[in-house]
Structure formats: structure tokens, C-alpha cells
């Protein structure tokens, strides 16, 4: 079974690490007996038992508090907060405690834990269950921030996250759960590295930087641009916002002269702004046009499918934005 869904990759990745390291525990709301709200963690309770795989009450602060205390004292917890939106319920733990305690203690304690969630839109869940909040985490010093776009990366980046000695916030994307990938070496251990972007497509005219569910959309847009306008794009899958692979992003931005970011974050203060700012400052001389951000508008997400579709960057919007910006710069 080398064809794996992104959904199944979640449990696969966690199981791989739990087999390897008895310090790894996994817990959250409905993750054990029910196998997760999105059926992403089916089988973990059966394999590892209730000592290591646990259901919790609806107590997001208690979940992350338990993760932090356990991480400080020798365990390697993976805690699930069902939706990225719910980070708002335990943001103190994330933004004030887990991220800062190592620094405040000048290294007396480490917090090696992973916080996993289902992030992003596309499931018609409305404004409070559809947000992309990886920018919230990126804005907080002391957190590593990871968001896989493929089933293989779900496994490999989870392995890297669990093995990392510092706190990692891990954003699975809800709209990708059904996506499949051929993984020939699925029977072997898969481990990726944090802080390494992947170039998913190469082209000389422009660089599109994308993350998570925006990666397949950016790739589709790049194909369309190639066919319809002859514009050849490089597509960089950032994978990890912290550490950020600025080397890869800047290399391709400089080489192509044009940068586009595609993000689900609402308009203001998303990670696109960060990457655009870095690239503008550091590739100034090489840029042949202004970097352009493609984002969700700065609005809460609507529930109705017709409206939700319009809010999130689409293949069409990406292609059109790139084409018209490239037209401008060529004009």
C-alpha cells in the first residue's frame, strides 16, 4: 500500500515516532477511541494503548499545559488541538509559556513537544473552524512552525518535529486530508528536515511561494500560466515557516526577478508579508517588479460553499494575478 492519503499519513507519522521512542505520547479531544474528528488518528489507541494515547476533556488549556509539563520532564508529547482556530483558547500556553520558558530560564528547561492541529478552510465550517493561523504562530518567538502540503511530508516533517528539541506547531491542512500520494518507501522510516523548503516546479519567469493547501493550487496555476500565457513559474513549497529557508526563497526570487506569495491567511500580517519584506530588502537589485501577495481578503470566512470558494485564493485567481502582474512588468 504505497498510495497514501494525507489523512492516513497523520497516524502513520505519529505511529512511526511512537514505535521509535517510548517517550512519545499522543493526546487530545476525541483522538483516541474515536480516532480523531477527521479520522486522522485511527489505530493509534489500539497499537499503543491508553497509557500513551489519550482522550481529553474539552480543556484546551489543560491539554497544552499537560504537554508542556510533560515535555519539561522527559516526555515527548504530541498534543492535538482539533482546529487551528482553537489555538485562541490556549494561546497563553503557546504564546506565553511554551515558546518563552526556555529563553526565560536561560536554557534550564527544554520544551520538546509538538502541537498538531487541523488548519485551513474548504470544509464549509464557517469563520471559527476554518482559519489559517500559521501566521499567529510565526509571529511568536520561540516556536517552530511547520505545515506540510503532501502525505509524505506529513510523515517526514512530523518525524522531524517530534525529534526536534524545541516546540513545534504542526499545521495539517483539513482540505488536504483526502489527497493521495504514491510513497514507494512507505515501509521504511521517513524523516525530513525542518527549515528546508522544496522546489516543486521550476521556471524562469517568476517564483511563487506557497504553503500547505496553497501548494497544489499554486502548481495548478503554474501549469495554467505555462499553457495559457507561456509564463514559467518556479513553485516553492515553504513547508516550514520557522525555521525559514530564506536561502531557497531568495535564490529563486533573485533568479526569476519576480515573487508571488500565496497564502490562506487573511490579508493583514500574514506570512506572505514577512516573506515579501525579506525578499524586497534582500533581493532589491534583482527584482524586476514588485512582489505581490495573493491572500484571503481581510474578512472572517463565510460558511456557505459559494462564498467560501470566493474567499480563499483559487487556481484562477493565482494565475490571473501572476499573469496581470507579469504583463505589467513586461509592459
Amino acid at each position: 500500500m504505497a498510495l497514501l492519503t494525507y489523512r492516513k499519513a497523520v497516524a502513520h507519522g505519529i505511529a512511526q515516532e511512537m514505535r521509535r521512542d517510548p517517550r512519545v505520547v499522543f493526546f487530545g479531544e476525541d483522538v483516541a477511541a474515536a480516532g480523531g474528528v477527521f479520522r486522522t488518528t485511527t489505530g493509534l489507541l489500539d497499537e499503543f494503548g491508553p497509557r500513551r494515547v489519550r482522550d481529553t476533556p474539552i480543556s484546551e488549556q489543560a491539554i497544552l499545559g499537560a504537554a508542556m509539563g510533560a515535555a519539561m520532564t522527559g516526555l515527548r508529547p504530541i498534543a492535538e488541538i482539533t482546529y487551528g482556530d482553537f489555538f485562541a483558547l490556549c494561546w497563553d500556553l503557546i504564546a506565553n509559556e511554551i515558546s518563552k520558558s526556555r529563553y526565560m530560564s536561560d536554557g534550564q528547561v527544554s520544551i520538546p513537544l509538538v502541537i498538531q492541529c487541523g488548519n485551513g478552510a474548504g470544509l464549509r465550517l464557517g469563520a471559527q473552524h476554518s482559519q489559517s493561523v500559521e501566521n499567529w504562530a510565526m509571529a511568536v518567538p520561540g516556536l517552530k512552525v511547520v505545515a506540510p502540503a503532501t502525505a509524505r511530508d506529513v510523515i517526514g516533517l512530523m518525524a522531524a518535529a517530534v525529534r526536534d528539541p524545541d516546540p513545534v506547531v504542526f499545521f495539517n491542512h483539513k482540505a488536504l486530508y483526502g489527497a493521495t500520494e504514491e510513497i514507494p518507501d512507505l515501509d521504511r522510516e521517513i524523516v525530513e528536515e525542518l527549515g528546508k523548503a522544496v522546489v516543486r516546479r521550476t521556471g524562469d519567469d517568476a517564483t511563487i511561494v506557497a504553503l500547505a493547501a496553497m501548494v497544489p493550487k499554486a502548481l495548478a496555476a503554474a501549469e495554467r500560466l505555462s499553457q495559457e500565457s507561456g509564463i514559467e513559474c518556479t513553485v516553492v513549497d515553504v513547508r516550514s515557516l520557522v525555521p525559514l529557508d530564506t536561502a531557497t526563497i531568495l535564490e529563486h526570487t533573485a533568479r526569476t526577478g519576480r515573487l508571488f506569495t500565496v497564502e490562506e491567511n487573511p490579508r493583514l500580517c500574514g506570512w506572505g508579508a514577512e516573506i515579501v519584506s525579506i525578499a524586497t530588502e534582500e533581493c532589491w537589485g534583482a527584482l524586476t517588479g514588485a512582489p505581490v501577495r495573493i491572500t484571503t481578503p481581510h474578512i472572517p470566512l463565510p460558511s456557505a460553499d459559494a462564498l467560501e470558494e470566493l474567499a480563499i485564493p483559487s487556481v484562477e485567481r493565482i494565475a490571473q494575478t501572476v499573469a496581470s502582474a507579469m504583463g505589467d512588468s513586461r509592459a
Partner: protein
Amino acid sequence: MSIDSLHTPEATPKEVSKETAIALYRTMSTARKFEQRVHDLFLKDLVKGPTHLGIGQEAIAAGVAAAMREDDYSFITHRGHSHLVARGTPLAPLMAELLGRDSGLMRGKGGSTHLIDAERGVLGSYAIVGAQLVIANGAAWSAQYRDSGQVTVCVFGDGATNTGAFHEALNLAVIWNLPVVFLCENNLYSRYTRVDSVTAVDNPAADRACAYGLASTVIDGNDPDEVHLTVATAIELARTGGGPALIEAITFSHGGHSGADPAGYRDPGEVRAWKDLDPLVTYRARLKSRGITDEVLNGIDAEIVAQIDAATEEAMAGDWPAVSRLYTNVWSDGGHAWRN
């Protein structure tokens, strides 16, 4: 919590009037049939999103709403359809909202989990479990401040009792003596997890009352009369300056957590036992014992079906929201501009 451990703190409440009884039946039956229709449409992929149904729990919505004054405030949960029905929200815009139409109660922006009908005092379904408890306090405080005599009823699930918001809300309500009635719909499950497996006490709401100096009240959530009378007493007390109350109503959801959930995690025996306690069935029997004929009740049901048919038809005929709707009503000026 099991069915057997139900207890009512005071003696069995007095009976409601026949008129009220028929109204309670009508509300329960409307909610039931409405949600059955929603489920049909969900299975046809016409209603999208999670779609949490409260089939089996209608006695609570009916009993509560009947005890409220028109200008009282309701705060409810993600499982909120029946409460809107009970407070009189017209069925067509309600259905249209679930269908994501422009004629929806919120033009499709909120959907099933974020229903709100401010005109009828329903200040929202809250999809973040527990949030409504702290927000309900604010409405109650405002009523107290304005001396309006309005009472706020805040409904929440058993799962909400383990959130921090529950604790903060109850404490504030007591120290500010707010006119708010907190009502727990304990349907024994918090999504896919039995609430008793993640809760330190047996009655997740009532056994916490002591922590706020409140009385512990557990009622049969499948008995609309008991719900009605208990809540009416609490509301009356709150309205006259007696402060908050905390009531736990035991009930059961016939279906799973959401529209797509087969609820395989529940014991079939448990489901069967609770279906025997279906409030529509048992209440119908009670009405009959009070001399209300099948004919009358069947007549009511037929009316309801006709209403729901009409509402569904009207809703289905609605347009999809226009693109421009995406950008309306972020701000009170109607727009979404964040810059000049």
C-alpha cells in the same frame, strides 16, 4: 450519568396547562420534523458543513422557550436548530441559511453552527464550546444595568462544563448577581467521548454548582413540562433580582454528533433505551392521558409538515449569495474596508 441516576431536587413539578402542553408538543414536533428534513437534505449534499442535529432533545428547547418572555435573550450551542424553532424563527430563512442561500437568516455567512436571530432574542449559537457562557453574562449584565427585566438563558452541552470559560462565567454571574439561567443539555456525550470518562464528577454541571454557592438541580431533559416549570421558576427568580441558576437537563441525541456521524461509539442498547424515552412519543402519550386526542395531534403534525414543505420549497428556490456579499457587514457601515 445514566438514566437511573436522574433525580429531581424538589417534588415532581406541577402540571402545565393544557394550552401550554399543546404548544410544547407543537414546538417539539416542529423541531423534530424540521431537523429530519435537514438531515434528508444533508444526505443529498444540499445542506453542507457539520450539521449538528438535536433529534431526541427537543423537550429542552420547547420547555425553555415557553418559559421565556419575548424580549429575553437566548444563548445556545452548535446544536441549536431546535432552539430557534422554539423561539419562533421563521422556518424558510432558517432552512435557507442551512442551504447556503442569500435568503438565509444570515445570508449563508454563519451556517448551521452559528445561527443567530437577534430579532427574536437568540443572540447566537456558539460553535466554540463554552464561549456562550461568558458572553451570556454580558447580556444579563446589560439587562440588569438597563433595568429592563430581561433574563438571559444560556444553554450549553455537557462537554462545555470542562472548559475554563464555564468556571469563569459561573463565578462572575454569582458575584454580580446576574439575571442569567445556565442550562446544561447533558446528552451524555461530548462529541464522540462519554462525558463521564473525562469529567471528575457524575453530573458535569450540577455537581459543580457547589463551587459557586448555587443549588444543584438535575432534571429530566426529555420531559418538557419539567423543563418548562423548572426553568420558569429560575427565570422568575432571576427576573426579580434573585441572581443566576444552574440547571442540568439529562437527555440524549438519537443521531450522532454531526450529520455524517454514524455514532458507532455508542452501545446500541443505550441508544435503544433512550429511544424508548423519545420525548415526542412519551409526551404524546401524556397528552392523550390528559384527554387530547390523536386527531388533534395528527392535525397539528399535518400543519407542521405543510409548513416545513413550504419553507423548504421557498428556501430551495433562493439564490446563491452574490459575490458582493463576501464583503458586506464586517463593519457596521456595511463594508469591509480596512484602509483608505
